[in-house]
Protein backbone atom coordinates (compact mmCIF):
# COMPACT_ATOMS: atom_id res chain seq x y z
CA UNK A 1 0.00 0.00 0.00
CA UNK A 2 1.23 3.45 -0.84
CA UNK A 3 0.71 5.58 2.24
CA UNK A 4 0.08 8.95 0.62
CA UNK A 5 -2.50 7.50 -1.79
CA UNK A 6 -4.26 5.91 1.16
CA UNK A 7 -4.24 9.21 3.02
CA UNK A 8 -5.59 11.08 0.00
CA UNK A 9 -8.38 8.51 -0.28
CA UNK A 10 -9.24 9.01 3.39
CA UNK A 11 -9.43 12.77 2.86
CA UNK A 12 -11.86 12.30 -0.03
CA UNK A 13 -13.98 9.92 2.02
CA UNK A 14 -14.03 12.31 4.97
CA UNK A 15 -15.14 15.17 2.71
CA UNK A 16 -17.70 12.90 1.07
CA UNK A 17 -19.26 11.75 4.31
CA UNK A 18 -20.57 15.13 5.40
CA UNK A 19 -22.39 17.96 3.80
CA UNK A 20 -20.34 20.38 5.86
CA UNK A 21 -17.04 21.63 4.53
CA UNK A 22 -13.93 20.78 6.47
CA UNK A 23 -10.90 22.88 7.29
CA UNK A 24 -7.29 21.68 7.34
CA UNK A 25 -7.28 21.45 11.13
CA UNK A 26 -10.52 19.45 11.30
CA UNK A 27 -9.21 17.03 8.65
CA UNK A 28 -5.87 16.69 10.43
CA UNK A 29 -7.60 15.84 13.72
CA UNK A 30 -9.95 13.41 12.05
CA UNK A 31 -7.21 11.59 10.16
CA UNK A 32 -4.64 11.80 12.94
CA UNK A 33 -2.09 13.55 10.72
CA UNK A 34 0.01 16.69 10.90
CA UNK A 35 -1.58 19.79 9.45
CA UNK A 36 1.34 20.26 7.06
CA UNK A 37 0.83 16.75 5.68
CA UNK A 38 -2.89 17.29 5.17
CA UNK A 39 -2.23 20.65 3.58
CA UNK A 40 0.17 19.13 1.05
CA UNK A 41 -2.29 16.38 0.17
CA UNK A 42 -5.11 18.88 -0.26
CA UNK A 43 -3.02 21.07 -2.56
CA UNK A 44 -2.27 18.08 -4.78
CA UNK A 45 -5.91 16.96 -4.82
CA UNK A 46 -6.94 20.53 -5.60
CA UNK A 47 -4.58 20.65 -8.59
CA UNK A 48 -6.49 17.66 -9.97
CA UNK A 49 -9.86 19.26 -9.11
CA UNK A 50 -10.66 16.38 -6.79
CA UNK A 51 -11.20 18.88 -3.97
CA UNK A 52 -11.84 22.58 -4.02
CA UNK A 53 -11.37 25.32 -1.48
CA UNK A 54 -14.15 27.67 -0.49
CA UNK A 55 -12.82 31.15 -1.19
CA UNK A 56 -14.66 32.72 1.75
CA UNK A 57 -14.07 30.27 4.57
CA UNK A 58 -10.92 28.58 3.31
CA UNK A 59 -12.53 25.19 4.00
CA UNK A 60 -12.40 22.27 1.60
CA UNK A 61 -15.11 20.28 -0.16
CA UNK A 62 -15.21 17.66 -2.91
CA UNK A 63 -14.25 18.89 -6.36
CA UNK A 64 -15.91 18.71 -9.78
CA UNK A 65 -13.54 16.05 -11.15
CA UNK A 66 -15.27 13.55 -8.85
CA UNK A 67 -18.56 14.05 -10.64
CA UNK A 68 -16.86 13.12 -13.90
CA UNK A 69 -15.36 10.04 -12.28
CA UNK A 70 -18.72 9.05 -10.81
CA UNK A 71 -20.40 9.43 -14.17
CA UNK A 72 -17.60 7.48 -15.83
CA UNK A 73 -18.16 4.69 -13.32
CA UNK A 74 -21.84 4.56 -14.24
CA UNK A 75 -21.14 4.84 -17.98
CA UNK A 76 -18.68 1.98 -17.79
CA UNK A 77 -21.29 -0.14 -16.11
CA UNK A 78 -22.47 -2.15 -19.10
CA UNK A 79 -25.67 -3.17 -17.38
CA UNK A 80 -26.71 0.44 -16.86
CA UNK A 81 -25.96 1.41 -20.45
CA UNK A 82 -27.94 -1.47 -21.83
CA UNK A 83 -30.82 -1.09 -19.41
CA UNK A 84 -31.77 2.48 -20.36
CA UNK A 85 -34.35 1.61 -23.03
CA UNK A 86 -35.77 -1.43 -21.24
CA UNK A 87 -36.15 0.48 -17.99
CA UNK A 88 -37.86 3.39 -19.73
CA UNK A 89 -40.29 1.02 -21.46
CA UNK A 90 -41.04 -0.83 -18.22
CA UNK A 91 -41.74 2.42 -16.37
CA UNK A 92 -44.19 3.68 -18.96
CA UNK A 93 -45.89 0.31 -19.24
CA UNK A 94 -46.34 -0.13 -15.47
CA UNK A 95 -46.72 3.52 -14.55
CA UNK A 96 -44.26 3.07 -11.68
CA UNK A 97 -40.63 3.90 -10.97
CA UNK A 98 -38.01 1.42 -12.22
CA UNK A 99 -34.77 0.52 -10.44
CA UNK A 100 -31.82 -1.34 -11.92
CA UNK A 101 -29.28 -2.61 -9.43
CA UNK A 102 -26.19 -4.73 -9.10
CA UNK A 103 -24.93 -6.64 -6.10
CA UNK A 104 -21.87 -5.11 -4.44
CA UNK A 105 -20.97 -7.17 -1.38
CA UNK A 106 -24.04 -7.39 0.85
CA UNK A 107 -25.76 -4.39 -0.79
CA UNK A 108 -27.55 -3.61 -4.01
CA UNK A 109 -26.14 -0.51 -5.71
CA UNK A 110 -28.74 1.30 -7.80
CA UNK A 111 -27.10 2.06 -11.15
CA UNK A 112 -30.22 3.30 -12.90
CA UNK A 113 -33.54 4.83 -11.85
CA UNK A 114 -36.43 5.87 -14.09
CA UNK A 115 -38.96 8.14 -12.41
CA UNK A 116 -42.60 7.15 -12.09
CA UNK A 117 -44.10 8.74 -15.21
CA UNK A 118 -46.61 11.04 -13.47
CA UNK A 119 -44.72 14.35 -13.46
CA UNK A 120 -44.48 14.36 -9.67
CA UNK A 121 -41.37 15.60 -7.92
CA UNK A 122 -39.03 12.65 -7.38
CA UNK A 123 -35.45 12.36 -6.23
CA UNK A 124 -32.88 10.40 -8.20
CA UNK A 125 -31.84 7.33 -6.21
CA UNK A 126 -28.88 6.31 -8.39
CA UNK A 127 -25.95 5.52 -6.10
CA UNK A 128 -28.18 4.37 -3.25
CA UNK A 129 -27.02 1.23 -1.50
CA UNK A 130 -29.67 -1.12 -0.09
CA UNK A 131 -29.06 -4.24 2.04
CA UNK A 132 -29.74 -7.22 -0.24
CA UNK A 133 -32.14 -9.07 2.07
CA UNK A 134 -34.48 -6.08 2.40
CA UNK A 135 -35.21 -5.40 -1.27
CA UNK A 136 -36.67 -7.26 -4.24
CA UNK A 137 -33.60 -6.48 -6.38
CA UNK A 138 -31.26 -7.98 -3.80
CA UNK A 139 -33.32 -11.06 -3.04
CA UNK A 140 -33.65 -11.99 -6.71
CA UNK A 141 -29.90 -11.48 -7.32
CA UNK A 142 -28.94 -13.63 -4.36
CA UNK A 143 -31.52 -16.31 -5.21
CA UNK A 144 -29.58 -17.11 -8.40
CA UNK A 145 -26.05 -16.87 -6.96
CA UNK A 146 -24.07 -20.07 -6.63
CA UNK A 147 -24.52 -21.96 -3.40
CA UNK A 148 -21.31 -20.75 -1.70
CA UNK A 149 -21.82 -17.09 -2.46
CA UNK A 150 -25.40 -17.34 -1.29
CA UNK A 151 -24.42 -19.09 1.94
CA UNK A 152 -21.83 -16.38 2.62
CA UNK A 153 -24.40 -13.60 2.29
CA UNK A 154 -26.92 -15.49 4.41
CA UNK A 155 -24.27 -15.86 7.11
CA UNK A 156 -23.52 -12.13 7.12
CA UNK A 157 -25.30 -9.41 9.08
CA UNK A 158 -29.00 -9.00 8.21
CA UNK A 159 -30.03 -5.64 9.67
CA UNK A 160 -33.70 -4.96 10.37
CA UNK A 161 -34.88 -1.94 8.35
CA UNK A 162 -38.61 -2.14 9.14
CA UNK A 163 -40.92 -4.36 11.16
CA UNK A 164 -41.30 -6.51 8.04
CA UNK A 165 -37.66 -7.07 7.11
CA UNK A 166 -36.83 -10.78 6.94
CA UNK A 167 -33.91 -11.27 9.32
CA UNK A 168 -34.23 -14.97 10.21
CA UNK A 169 -31.90 -17.06 8.05
CA UNK A 170 -34.35 -19.92 7.66
CA UNK A 171 -37.12 -17.58 6.53
CA UNK A 172 -34.80 -15.91 4.03
CA UNK A 173 -33.63 -19.26 2.70
CA UNK A 174 -37.25 -20.31 2.11
CA UNK A 175 -37.94 -16.94 0.51
CA UNK A 176 -35.02 -17.37 -1.91
CA UNK A 177 -36.29 -20.81 -2.94
CA UNK A 178 -39.73 -19.29 -3.56
CA UNK A 179 -38.13 -16.51 -5.62
CA UNK A 180 -36.48 -19.05 -7.94
CA UNK A 181 -39.80 -20.88 -8.17
CA UNK A 182 -41.69 -17.70 -9.12
CA UNK A 183 -38.99 -16.09 -11.24
CA UNK A 184 -39.51 -12.79 -9.41
CA UNK A 185 -38.86 -11.41 -5.96
CA UNK A 186 -41.41 -9.32 -4.10
CA UNK A 187 -40.60 -6.80 -1.38
CA UNK A 188 -43.45 -5.86 0.95
CA UNK A 189 -42.32 -2.87 3.03
CA UNK A 190 -39.15 -4.72 4.01
CA UNK A 191 -36.82 -1.79 3.30
CA UNK A 192 -39.10 1.24 3.71
CA UNK A 193 -42.51 1.37 5.37
CA UNK A 194 -45.18 1.89 2.71
CA UNK A 195 -42.96 0.85 -0.20
CA UNK A 196 -43.03 -2.28 -2.29
CA UNK A 197 -40.96 -3.77 -5.09
CA UNK A 198 -41.17 -6.48 -7.72
CA UNK A 199 -37.91 -7.50 -9.41
CA UNK A 200 -36.50 -10.11 -11.77
CA UNK A 201 -32.89 -11.15 -12.27
CA UNK A 202 -30.70 -10.26 -15.23
CA UNK A 203 -28.29 -12.86 -16.63
CA UNK A 204 -25.15 -12.47 -18.68
CA UNK A 205 -23.80 -14.65 -21.48
CA UNK A 206 -22.49 -17.22 -18.99
CA UNK A 207 -25.88 -17.51 -17.38
CA UNK A 208 -24.61 -15.81 -14.23
CA UNK A 209 -26.59 -13.10 -12.42
CA UNK A 210 -25.56 -9.67 -13.68
CA UNK A 211 -28.05 -7.66 -11.62
CA UNK A 212 -31.77 -7.08 -11.44
CA UNK A 213 -34.48 -4.82 -12.78
CA UNK A 214 -37.72 -4.06 -11.01
CA UNK A 215 -40.59 -1.77 -10.13
CA UNK A 216 -40.58 0.30 -6.95
CA UNK A 217 -43.65 2.05 -5.63
CA UNK A 218 -46.37 2.40 -3.03
CA UNK A 219 -47.43 -0.92 -1.55
CA UNK A 220 -51.13 -0.21 -2.14
CA UNK A 221 -50.52 0.06 -5.88
CA UNK A 222 -47.95 -2.70 -6.46
CA UNK A 223 -49.34 -5.25 -4.01
CA UNK A 224 -53.04 -4.39 -3.52
CA UNK A 225 -53.83 -8.06 -2.83
CA UNK A 226 -50.55 -9.72 -3.61
CA UNK A 227 -48.46 -8.60 -6.58
CA UNK A 228 -50.39 -7.18 -9.55
CA UNK A 229 -50.12 -9.91 -12.25
CA UNK A 230 -49.63 -7.39 -15.09
CA UNK A 231 -46.78 -5.75 -13.18
CA UNK A 232 -45.11 -9.13 -12.57
CA UNK A 233 -45.46 -10.00 -16.27
CA UNK A 234 -44.02 -6.64 -17.33
CA UNK A 235 -41.01 -7.02 -15.00
CA UNK A 236 -40.31 -10.54 -16.27
CA UNK A 237 -40.61 -9.42 -19.87
CA UNK A 238 -38.19 -6.52 -19.35
CA UNK A 239 -35.73 -8.80 -17.53
CA UNK A 240 -35.87 -11.42 -20.31
CA UNK A 241 -35.36 -8.82 -23.03
CA UNK A 242 -32.50 -7.16 -21.22
CA UNK A 243 -30.84 -10.50 -20.38
CA UNK A 244 -31.00 -11.50 -24.02
CA UNK A 245 -29.29 -8.24 -24.87
CA UNK A 246 -26.60 -9.01 -22.31
CA UNK A 247 -25.92 -12.22 -24.21
CA UNK A 248 -27.96 -14.64 -22.16
CA UNK A 249 -30.49 -17.00 -23.68
CA UNK A 250 -28.43 -19.62 -25.38
CA UNK A 251 -27.76 -21.65 -23.29
CA UNK A 252 -31.03 -21.24 -21.44
CA UNK A 253 -31.41 -18.57 -18.77
CA UNK A 254 -32.21 -20.21 -15.47
CA UNK A 255 -35.65 -19.25 -14.23
CA UNK A 256 -36.40 -16.92 -17.12
CA UNK A 257 -38.68 -19.33 -18.92
CA UNK A 258 -41.70 -18.78 -16.69
Amino acid at each position, binding site marked *: MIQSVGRAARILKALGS*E*SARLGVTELAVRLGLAKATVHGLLRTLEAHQLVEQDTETGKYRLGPALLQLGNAFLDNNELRARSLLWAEALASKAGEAVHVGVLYGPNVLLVHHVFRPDNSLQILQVG*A*SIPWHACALGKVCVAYLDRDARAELLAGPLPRL*TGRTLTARAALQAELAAVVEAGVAVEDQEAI*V*GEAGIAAALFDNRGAVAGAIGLAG*PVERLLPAGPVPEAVAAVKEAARGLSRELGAGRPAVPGAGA
Partner: protein
Amino acid sequence: MDAACARRWLGEVAARLAAERDFLTQLDAAIGDADHGVNMHRGFTAVMARVADLDEATPGQLLKVAGRTFVSTVGGAAGPLYGTAFLQAGDALGDAERFGPRLLAEALRAALEGVQRIGAAAVGDKTMVDAIAPALAAFELELRMGGSLETATCGAREAAAEGMRATIPLQARKGRASYLGPRSVGHQDPGATSSALMLAALADAVLADRSRRFAGGARRPGSGP
Protein backbone atom coordinates in the same frame (compact mmCIF):
# COMPACT_ATOMS: atom_id res chain seq x y z
CA MET B 1 -58.22 17.11 28.16
CA ASP B 2 -61.51 16.55 26.30
CA ALA B 3 -62.82 16.25 22.75
CA ALA B 4 -62.69 20.01 22.21
CA CYS B 5 -59.04 20.07 23.23
CA ALA B 6 -58.28 17.07 20.98
CA ARG B 7 -59.93 18.91 18.09
CA ARG B 8 -57.93 22.01 18.89
CA TRP B 9 -54.77 19.89 18.83
CA LEU B 10 -55.58 18.40 15.41
CA GLY B 11 -56.39 21.87 14.08
CA GLU B 12 -53.14 23.24 15.46
CA VAL B 13 -51.21 20.40 13.76
CA ALA B 14 -52.99 21.10 10.46
CA ALA B 15 -52.16 24.82 10.66
CA ARG B 16 -48.51 24.16 11.46
CA LEU B 17 -48.22 21.59 8.66
CA ALA B 18 -49.65 24.11 6.20
CA ALA B 19 -47.08 26.67 7.32
CA GLU B 20 -44.16 24.21 7.36
CA ARG B 21 -45.08 22.21 4.25
CA ASP B 22 -42.30 23.56 2.05
CA PHE B 23 -39.74 23.36 4.85
CA LEU B 24 -40.55 19.67 5.48
CA THR B 25 -40.36 18.92 1.76
CA GLN B 26 -37.03 20.71 1.57
CA LEU B 27 -35.66 18.61 4.45
CA ASP B 28 -36.97 15.47 2.74
CA ALA B 29 -35.44 16.44 -0.62
CA ALA B 30 -31.98 16.31 0.96
CA ILE B 31 -32.18 12.73 2.27
CA GLY B 32 -35.54 11.30 1.19
CA ASP B 33 -37.88 11.63 -1.75
CA ALA B 34 -39.10 15.21 -1.34
CA ASP B 35 -42.72 14.41 -0.57
CA HIS B 36 -42.97 14.62 3.22
CA GLY B 37 -44.36 18.16 3.44
CA VAL B 38 -46.89 17.61 0.68
CA ASN B 39 -47.96 14.22 2.05
CA MET B 40 -48.40 15.42 5.62
CA HIS B 41 -50.30 18.49 4.53
CA ARG B 42 -52.62 16.51 2.27
CA GLY B 43 -53.20 13.93 5.02
CA PHE B 44 -54.05 16.46 7.68
CA THR B 45 -56.29 18.45 5.37
CA ALA B 46 -58.27 15.23 4.86
CA VAL B 47 -58.22 14.55 8.62
CA MET B 48 -59.67 17.98 9.39
CA ALA B 49 -62.43 17.50 6.81
CA ARG B 50 -63.40 14.14 8.34
CA VAL B 51 -63.22 15.38 11.92
CA ALA B 52 -65.40 18.40 11.07
CA ASP B 53 -68.14 15.97 9.98
CA LEU B 54 -68.16 14.26 13.38
CA ASP B 55 -70.41 16.15 15.78
CA GLU B 56 -70.33 13.82 18.72
CA ALA B 57 -67.09 11.98 19.25
CA THR B 58 -64.85 11.08 22.16
CA PRO B 59 -61.18 12.09 21.97
CA GLY B 60 -60.32 8.44 21.30
CA GLN B 61 -62.74 8.27 18.38
CA LEU B 62 -61.34 11.49 16.94
CA LEU B 63 -57.80 10.14 17.00
CA LYS B 64 -58.88 6.84 15.46
CA VAL B 65 -60.68 8.62 12.63
CA ALA B 66 -57.56 10.73 12.13
CA GLY B 67 -55.43 7.56 11.98
CA ARG B 68 -57.68 5.80 9.49
CA THR B 69 -57.90 8.90 7.29
CA PHE B 70 -54.15 9.25 7.38
CA VAL B 71 -53.52 5.65 6.31
CA SER B 72 -55.91 5.97 3.38
CA THR B 73 -54.79 9.37 2.10
CA VAL B 74 -51.06 9.56 2.72
CA GLY B 75 -48.54 7.65 0.67
CA GLY B 76 -44.97 6.83 1.52
CA ALA B 77 -43.82 5.86 4.98
CA ALA B 78 -45.68 8.71 6.70
CA GLY B 79 -49.16 7.26 6.03
CA PRO B 80 -48.77 3.92 7.78
CA LEU B 81 -46.46 5.28 10.52
CA TYR B 82 -48.51 8.30 11.62
CA GLY B 83 -51.75 6.46 10.86
CA THR B 84 -50.74 3.70 13.27
CA ALA B 85 -49.60 6.23 15.87
CA PHE B 86 -53.00 7.96 15.91
CA LEU B 87 -54.93 4.67 15.83
CA GLN B 88 -52.96 3.26 18.76
CA ALA B 89 -53.26 6.48 20.74
CA GLY B 90 -57.00 6.53 20.10
CA ASP B 91 -57.29 2.92 21.25
CA ALA B 92 -55.40 3.69 24.44
CA LEU B 93 -57.80 6.53 25.27
CA GLY B 94 -60.74 4.14 25.02
CA ASP B 95 -64.17 5.68 25.63
CA ALA B 96 -62.96 8.38 28.02
CA GLU B 97 -64.85 11.64 27.51
CA ARG B 98 -62.08 13.50 29.22
CA PHE B 99 -58.74 12.42 30.55
CA GLY B 100 -55.74 13.61 32.46
CA PRO B 101 -52.00 13.40 31.93
CA ARG B 102 -51.66 9.74 32.96
CA LEU B 103 -53.94 8.45 30.25
CA LEU B 104 -52.31 10.84 27.78
CA ALA B 105 -48.93 9.32 28.68
CA GLU B 106 -50.36 5.88 27.96
CA ALA B 107 -51.67 7.10 24.61
CA LEU B 108 -48.27 8.55 23.70
CA ARG B 109 -46.62 5.30 24.70
CA ALA B 110 -49.06 3.29 22.57
CA ALA B 111 -48.34 5.58 19.62
CA LEU B 112 -44.58 5.17 20.02
CA GLU B 113 -44.85 1.40 20.32
CA GLY B 114 -47.02 1.25 17.21
CA VAL B 115 -44.49 3.25 15.23
CA GLN B 116 -41.63 1.08 16.47
CA ARG B 117 -43.45 -2.15 15.66
CA ILE B 118 -43.91 -1.08 12.03
CA GLY B 119 -40.67 0.78 11.49
CA ALA B 120 -38.36 -1.19 13.81
CA ALA B 121 -36.55 2.06 14.60
CA ALA B 122 -34.69 2.77 17.84
CA VAL B 123 -33.51 6.09 19.22
CA GLY B 124 -30.49 7.23 17.19
CA ASP B 125 -31.65 5.77 13.87
CA LYS B 126 -32.55 9.27 12.63
CA THR B 127 -36.32 8.84 12.45
CA MET B 128 -39.49 10.21 14.07
CA VAL B 129 -38.68 7.98 17.08
CA ASP B 130 -35.85 10.40 17.89
CA ALA B 131 -38.46 13.07 18.65
CA ILE B 132 -41.25 10.95 20.15
CA ALA B 133 -39.24 8.73 22.53
CA PRO B 134 -37.51 11.58 24.40
CA ALA B 135 -40.82 13.51 24.45
CA LEU B 136 -42.55 10.57 26.15
CA ALA B 137 -39.67 10.17 28.61
CA ALA B 138 -39.83 13.89 29.48
CA PHE B 139 -43.61 13.71 29.83
CA GLU B 140 -43.43 10.77 32.24
CA LEU B 141 -40.57 12.28 34.22
CA GLU B 142 -42.56 15.49 34.67
CA LEU B 143 -45.52 13.49 36.00
CA ARG B 144 -43.31 11.55 38.42
CA MET B 145 -42.02 14.89 39.69
CA GLY B 146 -45.55 16.07 40.36
CA GLY B 147 -46.06 18.12 37.20
CA SER B 148 -49.40 18.85 35.57
CA LEU B 149 -50.81 18.15 32.11
CA GLU B 150 -49.56 21.58 31.09
CA THR B 151 -46.00 21.25 32.36
CA ALA B 152 -45.75 17.67 31.06
CA THR B 153 -46.80 18.61 27.52
CA CYS B 154 -44.37 21.55 27.61
CA GLY B 155 -41.60 19.22 28.72
CA ALA B 156 -42.51 16.86 25.88
CA ARG B 157 -42.39 19.73 23.41
CA GLU B 158 -38.89 20.75 24.53
CA ALA B 159 -37.57 17.18 24.49
CA ALA B 160 -39.04 16.52 21.03
CA ALA B 161 -37.42 19.67 19.63
CA GLU B 162 -34.10 18.69 21.18
CA GLY B 163 -34.41 15.16 19.78
CA MET B 164 -35.24 16.59 16.38
CA ARG B 165 -32.14 18.81 16.36
CA ALA B 166 -30.03 15.89 17.57
CA THR B 167 -30.83 13.99 14.35
CA ILE B 168 -28.66 16.39 12.34
CA PRO B 169 -25.26 14.77 13.02
CA LEU B 170 -26.67 11.23 12.93
CA GLN B 171 -26.22 8.75 10.10
CA ALA B 172 -29.61 7.33 9.14
CA ARG B 173 -30.15 3.63 9.87
CA LYS B 174 -33.78 3.39 8.76
CA GLY B 175 -35.78 4.64 5.81
CA ARG B 176 -34.69 5.92 2.45
CA ALA B 177 -32.10 8.19 4.04
CA SER B 178 -30.19 5.10 5.18
CA TYR B 179 -29.46 4.28 1.51
CA LEU B 180 -27.24 7.35 1.46
CA GLY B 181 -24.98 5.97 4.19
CA PRO B 182 -22.65 8.66 5.56
CA ARG B 183 -24.12 11.24 3.18
CA SER B 184 -27.20 11.40 5.41
CA VAL B 185 -25.07 13.06 8.10
CA GLY B 186 -25.59 16.81 8.48
CA HIS B 187 -29.30 16.87 7.65
CA GLN B 188 -32.25 17.15 10.02
CA ASP B 189 -34.65 14.24 9.76
CA PRO B 190 -37.99 15.27 8.24
CA GLY B 191 -39.94 12.64 10.22
CA ALA B 192 -38.49 13.80 13.55
CA THR B 193 -39.33 17.34 12.47
CA SER B 194 -42.99 16.59 11.78
CA SER B 195 -43.23 14.63 15.07
CA ALA B 196 -41.75 17.55 17.01
CA LEU B 197 -44.26 19.81 15.28
CA MET B 198 -47.14 17.61 16.49
CA LEU B 199 -45.88 17.62 20.07
CA ALA B 200 -45.46 21.40 19.98
CA ALA B 201 -49.03 21.64 18.72
CA LEU B 202 -50.16 19.42 21.62
CA ALA B 203 -48.59 21.76 24.17
CA ASP B 204 -50.19 24.75 22.46
CA ALA B 205 -53.61 23.10 22.47
CA VAL B 206 -53.35 22.17 26.14
CA LEU B 207 -52.20 25.67 27.13
CA ALA B 208 -54.92 27.30 25.04
CA ASP B 209 -57.47 25.02 26.70
CA ARG B 210 -56.23 26.09 30.11
CA SER B 211 -56.41 29.83 29.39
CA ARG B 212 -59.88 29.37 27.95
CA ARG B 213 -61.00 27.62 31.12
CA PHE B 214 -59.56 30.29 33.38
CA ALA B 215 -61.00 33.03 31.24
CA GLY B 216 -64.39 31.33 31.49
CA GLY B 217 -64.03 31.39 35.25
CA ALA B 218 -65.23 27.84 35.86
CA ARG B 219 -62.85 24.99 36.54
CA ARG B 220 -64.03 21.77 35.06
CA PRO B 221 -64.91 18.98 37.39
CA GLY B 222 -62.26 16.30 38.01
CA SER B 223 -60.34 15.69 34.83
CA GLY B 224 -60.16 11.91 34.91
CA PRO B 225 -57.24 9.61 35.62
